[in-house]
């Protein structure tokens, strides 16, 4: 059930802060989405509100209905301003050390995300290098890597948590491993493609210089793979955030955005769920943006057209 909710807020990948002329279409779309959201809130919450009016035997106007659907304590779909208010309170007006602070929960998830992403990047790149250089690995490893991704993460996550728990690992590491499990795959696929991308002519050139495979790797294959690497890192960092949140669900974790979602759904606190989702997508956007910034920096150092 919780996964349904989780799938909704995909971090907006590839968002680019454009010049002013981009502001108008973006603004129009945002306004349209907010209007749609308010409309949906009325539609989805109306039944409950009408029931309540009927129980209290009160006559109601449309204005009263709309007002009520936008200010319920436990709405089916909270209105944007309710989410914004909850978000603001739990981010800015709550002590960061408090269990009610969204900053605290975001920090917990973010650390698992970053550790998982780091491990996933190392694993993904190492696998790709092995696959490109050893024909044996290409044939023996790739099917397993692909098979690993066909197993739903929700099936694996509890087992990872239980097994690692028995080994004495709790908290950050199990979540990071689940996150890694999810994010190494796009990196491996992208980097394999990138390392094989050099032009045959450029490879011949290295051969005429009698370059060693190591030299060919550092001077030709890796630079050629860089754009592929960054494209997959962007996908992977968003995926590793999802992995970290999913990793928090089966543990009954006390902290983290996943725990926040879980407790929200236990107690019907939909506003809390939505503000956690907003936080998750903001983190996703931020992370993808950061990878993009590093990409641009590296591109400049590598002489990309400015």
């Amino acid at each position, binding site marked *: 059930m919780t996964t349904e909710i989780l799938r909704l807020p995909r971090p907006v990948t590839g968002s680019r802060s454009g010049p002013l002329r981009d502001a108008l279409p973006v603004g129009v779309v945002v306004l349209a989405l907010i209007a749609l959201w308010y409309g949906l809130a009325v539609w989805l919450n109306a039944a409950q509100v009408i029931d309540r009016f009927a129980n209290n035997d009160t006559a109601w106007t449309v204005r009263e209905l709309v007002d009520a659907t936008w200010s319920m304590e436990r709405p089916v779909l909270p209105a944007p301003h309710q989410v914004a208010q909850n978000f603001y309170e739990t981010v800015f007006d709550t002590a960061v050390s408090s269990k009610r602070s969204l900053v605290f929960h975001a920090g917990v998830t973010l650390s698992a995300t970053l550790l998982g992403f780091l491990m996933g990047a190392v694993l993904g790149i190492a696998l790709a290098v092995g696959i490109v250089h050893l024909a044996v690995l290409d044939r023996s490893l790739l099917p397993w890597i692909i098979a690993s991704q066909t197993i739903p993460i929700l099936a694996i996550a509890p087992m990872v948590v239980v097994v690692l728990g028995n080994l004495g690992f709790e908290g950050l590491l199990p979540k990071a491993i689940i996150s890694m499990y999810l994010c190494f795959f796009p990196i491996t696929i992208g980097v394999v493609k990138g390392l094989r991308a050099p*032009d045959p*002519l*450029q490879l*011949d*050139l*290295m*051969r*005429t*210089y*009698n*370059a*060693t495979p*190591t*030299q060919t790797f*550092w*001077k*030709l294959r890796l*630079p050629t793979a*860089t754009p592929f690497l960054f494209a997959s890192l962007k996908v992977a960092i968003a995926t590793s955030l999802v992995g970290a949140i999913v990793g928090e669900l089966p543990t009954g974790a006390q902290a983290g955005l996943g725990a926040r979602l879980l407790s929200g759904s236990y107690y019907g606190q939909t506003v809390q769920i939505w503000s956690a989702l907003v936080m998750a997508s903001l983190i996703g956007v931020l992370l993808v943006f950061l990878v993009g910034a590093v990409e641009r920096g590296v591109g400049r150092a*590598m*002489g990309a*057209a400015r």
Partner: protein
Amino acid sequence: MSAIDPIPTPASGSAGADIAPDAVVARNLSLIYPAADKPVVALSDIDLTIRRGEFVSFIGPSGCGKTTLMRVVADLATPTSGSITVNGVSPHAARLSRAYGYVFQAPALYAWRNVQRNVMLPLEIMGLPVAERRSRAARYLDMVGLGGFERKFPWQLSGGMQQRVSIARALAFEPDLLLMDEPFGALDEITRDHLNEQLLQLWNRTGKTVIFVTHSISEAVYLSTRIVVMSPRPGRILEIIDSPLPPQRPLDIRETPAFLEVAHRVRVALRAGHSYDD
């Protein structure tokens, strides 16, 4: 990485090299690509000797094996039968000792390296000290007329300039033998004339052996001391034409009767080998 890098080989046989081996000796050389229906004979019974200091062009229509022959010399392709030596040793040994510089049809510059670092690439691989790399890059970029462009990236240069960088790169590690595979094929005629003239001056100045693949008759005649005319299906040598033209050749030489006479012989030879059966 650099553990197995050998000492840079200054194999220049200028002094005391009266017994220096020929640059290329091929005997009964054949290369057959296996194919599903019918094997492709890329090279058939090639007999060819290229002496040091010669400028030899391979000319012929597409599929005549001129590039394949050059790739065999460069140890980028392996012959099926026959023998070949490069500087007196096998092509493989010659490649390991970095005996030749290869200039491809496309510049094949590395987009993420600026002009200077592109030229320094082979020197890095050979493990030369940084100061030496810099000074050689400067010297050879000057030689191809690109002094001052060190910091530019390939995308900032025209096609002709890019190809000149790739020539500087091939010269920078100072091989005896320069293999050039249609290096000016993609350039406009004005740039091509200009680069032909520069290449000839370079050859006169350095005395390197040059093997040059082209399908332009006038380019072949203008540049070469000998022209190897080849023909497809199977790839073979039809005729080897010695050029009587002097080593110093202004561009105008292309209008002289001697030049036209050589060009005519090349054309006749090409026509003789050309079958219009497809």
